[in-house]
């Protein structure tokens, strides 16, 4: 009998025995085997585990073909009407386009064209502070003046007060705003936005900083046309958004 045969015999006699020692040994070995089996199974799972695929966030747009484009005089805070949304950059960048107001006409009080400027822009109540270009967001500011900077560079806002080529930066900034058709993916020069005031908001997807969608955008804009006579005349005579009364039928002086 070889050494190996002797060991097998010992093992056999131990397992086959009816004593307490044999029972304890059988229980222990069975537990050990189960434990090893469980570990083996877990190990198999570990070996196939990978980082979960980024599923993104489902975003639903709320545009409507029945939304009316407002006419804003004086100073107003408005959310605007959504009229285009684009997703690009492997679905990591979205552009939201909001129309804010009709461009108004000439003021009869001084014969100058009315101008609409952007005072402030808000993201869910947080004021957006921009970098020097007046386009790229540097920080979000709450009512207490606290700054949140971890979204810096991942939000951009382009403002236009006279169609796609009428880009302006918010008050207090200086910079050149490119035509909107050079900003929004898919737009061509025929996206003219004639006689409209609008804004384009770009958002990058940054899961790490919970930037996974757009906030509630509001725009604080100001029209130089604010005098009652100017406004009444403009809304009475304008053929695009007003009553279209011929100027000859109105005694303006």
């Amino acid at each position: 009998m070889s050494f190996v045969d002797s060991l097998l015999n010992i093992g056999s006699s131990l397992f086959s025995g009816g004593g307490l020692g044999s029972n304890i040994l059988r229980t222990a070995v069975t537990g050990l085997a189960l434990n090893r089996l469980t570990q083996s199974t877990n190990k198999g799972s570990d070996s196939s585990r990978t980082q979960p695929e980024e599923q993104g966030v489902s975003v639903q747009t709320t545009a409507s073909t029945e939304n009316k484009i407002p006419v804003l005089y004086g100073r107003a805070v408005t959310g605007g009407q959504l009229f285009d949304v684009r997703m690009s950059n492997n679905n990591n960048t979205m552009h939201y386009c909001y129309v804010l107001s009709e461009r108004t006409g000439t003021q009869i009080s001084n014969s100058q064209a009315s101008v609409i400027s952007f005072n402030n822009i808000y993201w869910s109540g947080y004021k957006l502070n921009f970098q020097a270009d007046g386009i790229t967001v540097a920080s979000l500011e709450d009512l207490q003046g606290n700054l949140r900077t971890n979204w810096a560079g991942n939000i951009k806002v382009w403002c236009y007060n006279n169609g796609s080529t009428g880009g302006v930066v918010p008050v207090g900034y200086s910079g050149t705003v490119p035509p909107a058709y050079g900003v929004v993916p898919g737009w061509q020069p025929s996206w003219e936005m004639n006689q409209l005031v609008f804004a384009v908001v770009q958002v990058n997807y940054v899961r790490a900083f919970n930037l996974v969608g757009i906030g509630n955008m509001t725009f604080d804009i100001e029209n130089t046309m604010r005098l009652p006579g100017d406004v009444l005349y403009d809304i009475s005579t304008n053929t695009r958004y007003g009553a279209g009364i011929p100027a000859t039928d109105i005694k303006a002086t």
Partner: protein
Amino acid sequence: MALDLSSYRAVQTANFVKMVIEDYGNILVSNAQVSQTISGDVYTNIGQLLYISDSRSEIRALEQSVTVGISGIPAGSVAQILDNNPKGSAITIRQAFYNPTTGTILSIAGNPLIKFRGIVTNYNMTEEWDNASKTASFTIVLECTSLITNILEKVSGRRTNDADQQTLYPDDLSMSRVSTITRAQFQFGKPGGAAV
């Protein structure tokens, strides 16, 4: 404007209707006894064949409507009327005071005055058959509303849709995607997929 007629022992009035039909021309008729020229327009006198309903005259600008009826239209002219739909035509009704003896319009400030200005909102035609002559004539009744009414009912401005935008600016495609993105779903941040 109030007219000062105190120095005249007798005056006569007549109404003058000017209707501007797009792509057709002007229709100028009056219920005067003779044809009259007002502001360069020669009004054909059709006498009692012209009917104009009463209208209010108030200082305030009011909504009002007026019915203008023109009778005695020969059957041969019906097709011409139907081909040139008078709906939407601008209509101006003037009232003139003139000398009954000379038939000339009184030369006083404010004469003739504009009694009503508006547009034709509807019309209807009725046929009158003359059994004796075996001929038919027609009466056209124009329903007109004042400019004030039109202004109050007018809906102007743009909506965020392609049709409104293209009506004003035929080459402008800015609103062409609104219907596409109405309740559209975007998987923001999910890798893959074409740009939308």
